């Protein structure tokens, strides 16, 4: 019983981090058809921004976290304004944007390395303390990760389904020209999507680094997992990405316990292959449309 509880707690913690990392990726793909290879470095950027504010500038931790999240939004906006909007209307956008964002990822990773070095700094966003359920321990840090992910993803789902802003995003994703004819400022929508994706990625980066440490390459591993999750869910499905992330997190923890930790990620990759063979559009429907 203790083991099962431990698997669930570990799985939910991992899944929450994966979910935050993948919904932003799903959103940009669903809206713009853009697979953002710099999504991982957005996470890194947010984590380092939060660390810098709290540790080097002495900003109180809640504000430092907020600054870190805002930094993610800022880098998302910058990427749109300086790169993406110039490429959006090209025929081969889906391919060229991958190359461009991969270049941005390498550049930013190197800049972070240049500025901070490779020393694995500790993320100050830590919550001490624990709660016991029988013989199993749940740390407040894990609870905070789950709660943060739940709040942000719920807010995201609400935004997409219940607001005019979300309607504009979904309309733009379905048909950009039709959305324009209906009065939607699609350029602005794309910018907003990039800001949201950057914000979510930064939040994920802060949470991931709170359970690991800061390093310029810290976004690489979560990006690969986010990609796996998006493929399993169906590229573009935001809620699907969130649910798939939780499911895969629990599955990884269970495989780690019953078969060995080293089998967790390979099984996830095997699942991607199966999904691509038997349900190429993913478990949650069609490609190319943002779905709450």
């Amino acid at each position, binding site marked *: 019983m203790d083991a099962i509880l431990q698997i669930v707690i*570990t799985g939910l913690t*991992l899944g929450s981090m994966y979910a935050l990392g993948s919904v932003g990726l799903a959103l940009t793909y669903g809206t713009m058809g853009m697979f953002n290879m710099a999504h991982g470095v957005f996470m890194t950027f947010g984590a380092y921004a939060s660390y810098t504010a709290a540790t080097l500038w002495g900003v109180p931790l809640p504000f430092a976290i907020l600054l870190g999240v805002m930094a993610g939004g800022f880098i998302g906006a910058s990427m749109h304004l300086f790169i993406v909007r110039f490429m959006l209307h090209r025929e081969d956008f889906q391919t060229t944007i991958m190359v461009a964002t991969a270049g941005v990822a390498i550049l930013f990773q190197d800049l972070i390395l240049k500025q901070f070095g490779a*020393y*694995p700094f500790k993320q100050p966003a830590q919550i001490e303390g624990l709660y016991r359920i029988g013989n199993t321990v749940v740390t407040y840090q894990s609870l905070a990760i789950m709660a943060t992910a739940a709040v942000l993803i719920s807010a995201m789902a609400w935004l997409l389904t219940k607001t005019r802003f979300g309607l504009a995003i979904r309309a733009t994703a379905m048909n950009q020209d039709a959305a324009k004819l209906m009065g939607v400022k699609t350029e602005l929508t794309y910018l907003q999507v990039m800001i949201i994706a950057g914000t979510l990625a930064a939040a994920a980066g802060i949470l991931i680094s709170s359970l*690991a440490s800061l*390093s310029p390459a810290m976004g690489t591993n979560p990006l690969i997992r986010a990609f796996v999750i998006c493929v399993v869910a169906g590229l573009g499905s935001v809620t699907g990405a969130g649910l798939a992330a939780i499911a895969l997190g629990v599955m990884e923890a269970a495989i780690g316990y019953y078969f060995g930790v080293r089998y967790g990620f390979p099984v996830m990759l095997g699942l991607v292959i199966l999904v691509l063979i038997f349900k190429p559009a993913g478990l949650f429907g069609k490609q190319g449309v943002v779905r709450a």
Partner: protein
Amino acid sequence: MTENSKTNKLASRRGFLKTAGLGSIGGVAAASLGTAASAQSGEPIVIGGPIQMTGGGAADGIEFKQGLEMAAEEINAAGGILGRPVKIVVADTESGGDDKITSAGQRLIDRDGASALITGYNFGSQVALQNVAADASVIYMHADTARAHTSLVGGDPEKYWSSFMYCPSEVFYGFAYLNFIKNLEETGQFTGANKKIALVTGPIQYSINIANSIKEEAAKYGYEISLYETVEAPTNDWGPTLAKIREDEPGFIVITHFFPGDQAQFMKQFLTNPTNSLVYLQYGASLAAFRDIAEEASEDVLYATNIGVLSGDVGTDFTARYLAKYGEKASANGGAQTYEALHMFAQAAAMAGGVGEAYDDVQNKKIADRLRTMIYRGPTGTIRFNPETQQAYSYPVETNDPSLGMSHIFSQIEKKEENGKIISPTPYGVTEFRTPKWIKS
């Protein structure tokens, strides 16, 4: 395999360390064999550092680069190598595999004109740079701690005459660890809850080899392996592994996956609900990054290294100078490795009559001959190469004379603010083992 008695330890330690320190100071002076004035005018000797400056091994890589730079400054201040100043050029191996490592080494030789390659450790198969060095006839000194080097060089000494591993291989960690815990139990310093060892290793060959050597030898020492788990890097959440450990409580936990951040997370998560287990973390816990991240959870952890800075005049002096130069967060254990390797190379080169360019196998073979026969005492102890495998001898595993082998030291962290204190072997121990505070009985 031998350990002197505790009573002899205290009596002999001070005198031995004093002598060792004097030997090293003399050695540093001998490295120059030139004048400060001529060092300014000679053609620079380029020493290439194929070092992991980014990725998982970067925490150590930074120290390796600093160690090289510090040694170069000292050598140049003392007149260089026969009047020629030493210039360090580093190429990033990105904590990558053989492709990255090989291209970094080749680039240093072909583009930067490196006459020798000196580094700490790299990942990959750990036999990549030996081939680069053999092809270019340059001296290559490394601390990969790899049995792969021993097999490669020992198997074909004609081809790999230029490659030297200035520390023992990782397989000694297995014997030494088992010997260490058995000694703790036999001397009454610690009694394990049982004879079970939970072994957790990582994806790097070094970690796997150490885990396997413990697994293979455990029964001979009266222990059994209750868990053999392989984790990936990075591992942030240790939940499944800890669940298994808690389900079948072992008397001893050994983590050979050596990334300091991952080890720190293990300790933090382990201590939320600890078992009565003695925790040993391979190498990573010796780095400041581990204590920074783990904080209080780092205390009472045991770790070992067969190339760590020793107590006594030489080690203490080096540590003080290193930390003064690179800050309190720097790790002298990492920097000392390349620092002493470069000093040793400089001495050998000076004795051989100078450094040859790449592909000058005549002159560089003379340096290899000197390296093969000399004894160098640096901050981490004595480097003396086995002439057949060109691997440093281990003390106390291969020799019971600490002046003839690199010490395999066991340390325990007392305070999160300080490096661990050496508890073994004689004569370097500065404190006694203490039972970790999480062990209840």
